[in-house]
């Protein structure tokens, strides 16, 4: 923005803040430096009007609450003013520890747009007299990232506007278009989800933001629906796909001496002899346990129960027979990812 334009806009803000009457465009042009023109010349007047429109848009983008109204019932032309109460950040007093928290919070964003918004918000707090120590630390820092769909979805949830997006689950071959009335966005275990009413399924659903492909489109008008009054977004996501498994089963495995540390950490030690250590493991799902144990190869042998033993042997047989060629027929569904298998 040019210096003259910036100067004009600062003067416009000061002028509109200082007036209690609504000022018409003509009155503003006659007052604020930079709008001088010959109103009788239609080309000049149109140029002024375009300039004024751009300036108003600029102020609104910045968050300046421009009010429109008429000074009296006899006026036909709209006027403008800025209500100080709407413009100004209310008084805010933060204790040193609170200030430190805000300063740290503003540094957490790794997403460029929100990082910029956090620091410009912080600058406003500074301007309100809050002194922020840039060195403050809490000894622990969350790294906060968001998916691109975060911005549009939280805005839509806030405005209660329906959205449409393409959603791809890895097990499916193509993305599906979903229509959702979003209730809110949730960060759960490091991933972002949107919860809402799925218009096609006619039921509550949650979607992982990282699986949204392409843009989120706004459909329909704001205020189109009302989320259920008692909805707890966190517990909704936490219970999605069932809660934590019930580990009522008990398996006994033989582990080679000094091997399979990952299994030992979760096991109860029963006895040791030269071929290895007998360990007990709690489990919920035999297939899930088998998947995990097969990862340790010959270091772990299942002694009991039979359902786990059989599941392990079946998987090992498949692996031993695979000649390095992809199997022709895909095996049965086996979905959940193993806990703690990350490098």
């Amino acid at each position: 923005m040019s210096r003259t334009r910036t100067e004009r806009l600062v003067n416009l803000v000061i002028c509109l803040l200082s007036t209690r009457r609504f000022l018409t465009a003509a009155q503003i042009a006659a007052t604020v430096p930079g709008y001088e023109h010959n109103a009788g010349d239609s080309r000049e007047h149109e140029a002024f009007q375009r300039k004024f429109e751009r300036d108003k848009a600029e102020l609104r983008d910045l968050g300046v609450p421009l009010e429109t109204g008429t000074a009296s019932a006899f006026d036909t032309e709209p006027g403008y003013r800025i209500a100080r109460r709407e413009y100004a950040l209310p008084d805010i007093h933060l204790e040193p520890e609170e200030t430190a928290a805000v300063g740290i919070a503003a540094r957490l964003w790794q997403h460029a747009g929100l990082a910029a918004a956090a620091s410009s918000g912080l600058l406003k707090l500074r301007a309100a007299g809050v002194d922020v120590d840039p060195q403050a630390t809490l000894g622990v820092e969350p790294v906060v990232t968001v998916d691109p769909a975060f911005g549009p979805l939280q805005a839509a949830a806030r405005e209660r506007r329906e959205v449409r997006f393409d959603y791809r689950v890895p097990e499916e071959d193509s993305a599906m278009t979903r229509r959702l009335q979003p209730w809110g966005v949730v960060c759960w275990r490091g991933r972002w989800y949107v919860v809402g009413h799925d218009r096609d399924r006619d039921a509550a659903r949650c979607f992982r933001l990282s699986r949204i492909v392409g843009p989120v489109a706004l459909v329909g008008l704001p205020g189109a629906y009302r989320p259920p009054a008692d909805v707890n977004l966190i517990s909704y996501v936490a219970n999605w796909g069932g809660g934590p498994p019930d580990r009522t089963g008990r398996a006994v495995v033989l582990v080679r001496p000094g091997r399979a540390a990952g299994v030992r950490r979760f096991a109860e030690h029963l006895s040791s002899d030269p071929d290895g250590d007998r360990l007990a493991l709690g489990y919920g799902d035999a297939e899930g346990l088998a998947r995990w144990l097969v990862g340790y190869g010959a270091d772990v042998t299942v002694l009991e129960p039979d359902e786990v033993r059989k599941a392990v042997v079946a998987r090992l047989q498949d692996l031993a027979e695979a000649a390095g060629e992809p199997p022709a027929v895909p095996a049965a569904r086996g979905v959940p990812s193993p806990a703690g298998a990350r490098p």
Partner: protein
Amino acid sequence: MTAAGGDRLGRLLNLVPYLLARPGIEVAEAAADLGVTERQLREDLELLWVCGLPGYGPGDLIDMAFDGDRVTITYDAGIDRPLRLTQDEALALVVALRMLAELPGAHDRAAVESALAKIESAAGDAAADLPVAVRLPPNTTRRLADLRAAVQRGNALRLRYYSATRDRVSERVVDPMRVVVAEGHAYLEAWCRAAQGVRLFRLDRIDEHAELPEPAVVPAGAAPKDLREGIFRPDADMPLVTLSVGRWARWITEYYPCESVVEDSPERWLVSLRAVDMAWARRLVLGLGPEVSVVAPAELAAEVRREARAALAAYGA
């Protein structure tokens, strides 16, 4: 989302109240605080100096007094308060504070929660009914509080740590730097004396920790890792493994950073990823079972078969 921070108009409207709150502040200090150069700040002040109330006479214009390198606003022309927070600003601050409020540690938590309440109230409509909720990983909170306190006391730590990549538990002495929470897990970032490097230790894999009676000494050149691109960033010198992946194992493409994913056919995807080492790759492939087969390297495919046969032998199968 707009980045209002770079906008000069916003900066100028903020500058007057900022200076009003700090009469006699040094220009250099103000510039550093506001994230601009001293020269830029002086240009901003010059511009403000010719702005003011209608009339634009000497008594109407914003005025300021300079005393050496210090500046004091003597007339503010009515812009004595900063603008309200925009929706994005309120969102960014409030969500980040909600993240902080999730961290265990009662003392700071109270401060975070009261700061959050004050910011929400000052933001007014911009923060009203913000439909964003956050929850940290639940199982690490206890250890997180302990380790965080240890980091703040600044002592070296002895860890009993399970390395999932090596499938081994080892003892090591580390000089803690910070605790970070990222991608759903909490980590201790520290200088590892044995590895002579900065390492991230996942809290749920620290089986035991003890504070040593000596201060942590982090070597001067050791910097915290840049976590913007993710916690695990594969090196180009790690072995590349290519797998043929069936439908029900496609989740690995969301779970592990992959070098490439080629949708080879409707039933098989070709997925290439960097393995920390071959033992890790073997455990991964064995665990994934029949849904995945090894395309390359051939040694890995052979090793998986050999290991599976050796394991089967124990069952007499």
